[in-house]
């Protein structure tokens, strides 16, 4: 009995210290005991690296330093950058960049980058990127996008509806550290390039129409401009100039209380099994190799059986998003079950059979009626593609209290004693591991 009383007291002191913010209650910040090292990047979910006046809920923010290539002086550090394992490459709104960054060797080229529903328009420029500050992890010299919806004639022809600025988007930029190196790849290098990059002439940017382009892309009707891989917007991690850390990263975030915390702070450690801070645990982790669309299959078994062939893990999604037939009460796009509910699921990737996992769902309206921002139990409801095969988007919630390693495709790492590399044929598309 004594033991029970003690544990109850601990529970009350650790979880019950609610404070009032603007008339709404909040639960204090939680922090992950991050390792130290030159490859450790601080991540704050709705914490000090986010802009409190523009941030949205469940938003992981980092700080990135960019320099004019080769310079250690013409540099700028930008906070409030979204950490996004679901995209590839660094993009920053041009309105917050004071440096003068040159075009890539391919010249004046703008990109329309598609993020599912949002899109970004603006020029591709060359930059040195320091993810953990100058003097720590070596630089990555990569093309980045300067987001500017007004660039050379504006977005209306080739990228209508693109993001306008940080106050609308919520962030100053996006650091894409997903499973690919370039954001397009070989599809944008050939004779009929995908409609992604567009050459500009100082006043307008143009598409290529007719002939082979109409035939190649009849659903959109035009090609883009051929962009060599080295000129495409690229994930900084596989492009780090020296050292072993080019094969991926692990995101370390603390467990979050049911009902949320005001913020959640942790880190991204660069590299997979290259240093003390990014080693996979002694107990074997599961490795989930993505398919060529950076997806895998997630089936739910309760409360309802659903089959979701186009699923993915993505720190840049601010909740878990699941299809509308999950068997839970839906309140205007969010799920709002009467009680905290566990959704049981299994994940099947191209290399592995079904592995069991789960996530939590609680009444979203209750969560919104607090001053908390980091939620482990917020789930959105999507009716996206009405077919028997749909998607579950395991967003930032899924990272709380669960270190997840991201392996970049065509790189090499040893996990559980197995070498993952393109040569071994088992890292063609990248992987998640946890």
């Amino acid at each position: 009995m004594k033991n029970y009383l003690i544990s109850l007291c601990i529970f009350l002191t650790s979880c019950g210290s609610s404070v009032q913010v603007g008339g709404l209650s909040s639960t204090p910040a939680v922090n992950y005991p991050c390792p130290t090292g030159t490859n450790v990047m601080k991540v704050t979910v709705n914490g000090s690296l986010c802009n409190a006046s523009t941030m949205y809920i469940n938003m992981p923010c980092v700080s990135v330093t960019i320099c004019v290539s080769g310079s250690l002086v013409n540099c700028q550090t930008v906070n409030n950058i979204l950490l996004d394992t679901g995209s590839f490459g660094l993009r920053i709104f041009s309105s917050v960049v004071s440096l003068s960054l040159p075009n890539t060797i391919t010249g004046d080229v703008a990109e329309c980058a598609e993020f599912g529903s949002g899109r970004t328009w603006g020029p591709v420029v060359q930059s040195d990127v320091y993810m953990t500050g100058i003097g720590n992890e070596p630089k990555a010299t990569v093309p980045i996008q300067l987001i500017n919806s007004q660039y050379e004639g504006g977005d209306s022809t080739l990228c209508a509806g693109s993001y306008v600025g940080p106050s609308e988007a919520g962030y100053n930029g996006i650091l894409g550290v997903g499973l690919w190196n370039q954001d397009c790849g070989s599809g944008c290098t050939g004779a009929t390039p995908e409609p992604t990059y567009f050459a500009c002439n100082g006043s307008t940017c143009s598409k290529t129409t007719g002939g082979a382009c109409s035939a190649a892309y009849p659903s959109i009707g035009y090609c883009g401009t051929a962009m060599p891989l080295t000129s495409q917007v690229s994930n900084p991690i596989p492009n780090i100039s020296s050292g072993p850390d080019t094969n991926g990263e692990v995101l370390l975030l603390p467990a979050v209380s049911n009902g949320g915390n005001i913020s959640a702070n942790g880190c991204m450690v660069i590299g997979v099994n290259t240093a003390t801070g990014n080693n996979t645990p002694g107990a074997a982790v599961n490795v989930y190799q993505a398919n060529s669309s950076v997806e895998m299959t997630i089936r739910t078994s309760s409360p309802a059986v659903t089959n979701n062939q186009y699923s993915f893990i993505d720190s840049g999604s601010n909740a878990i998003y699941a299809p509308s037939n999950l068997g839970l009460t839906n309140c205007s796009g969010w799920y709002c079950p009467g009680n905290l509910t566990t959704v049981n699921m299994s994940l099947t990737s191209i290399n592995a059979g079904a592995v069991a996992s789960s996530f939590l769902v609680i009444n979203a309206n209750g969560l919104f009626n607090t001053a908390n921002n980091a939620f482990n139990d917020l789930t959105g409801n999507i009716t996206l593609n009405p077919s028997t095969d749909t998607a579950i988007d395991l967003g930032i919630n899924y990272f709380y209290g669960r270190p997840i390693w991201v392996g970049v495709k065509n790189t090499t790492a040893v996990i559980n004693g197995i070498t993952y590399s393109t040569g071994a044929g088992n890292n063609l598309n990248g992987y998640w591991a946890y």
Partner: protein
Amino acid sequence: MIFRMGRTSLLCLCISLSISSMAFGGLGQSESSCEDEAQFFNVKSHEVVTNEKYKVHTLRLNSGMVINEYVANNIVFGVSWRGTRYHPQFDKLLGVHFNEYKAHENELHHHKGTRNETPNSKGSRFSTLRTTKIVMTLGGHMGSPSGSAFAPNSMPEGLSMDEVR
């Protein structure tokens, strides 16, 4: 019941070129427009599955894009698409409701929602436009966007969007 149709013949291609400037397919058009679209898109295959309440025309393009068109009462009441790294040109799929999309384009692409507004909350990969004429959702992730659009007024009686699979 499944029909399979092969690549278009030259004759069909000529016909499709002659009408390609018209808003010939997509929402609100007759069922025959699905075949017109299949020809215009030069599809690899065009399958039709008949369910109890509606038919699904599935168009598979050489690019890898898959387009579904949902038909009842000889009217296309819904479309969905998946595959490739970009969305299709919406004028080719939204038919008579393309202007409705254009009028609300920024609402759909820009996530201006506040804390509790969904599905347009900032940070979501998914966004839905709801008007009396069109319910359109975009989503997915970089490398694999997809979407759907329905015309509520053309839905067959007794069928809800959640039932369409």
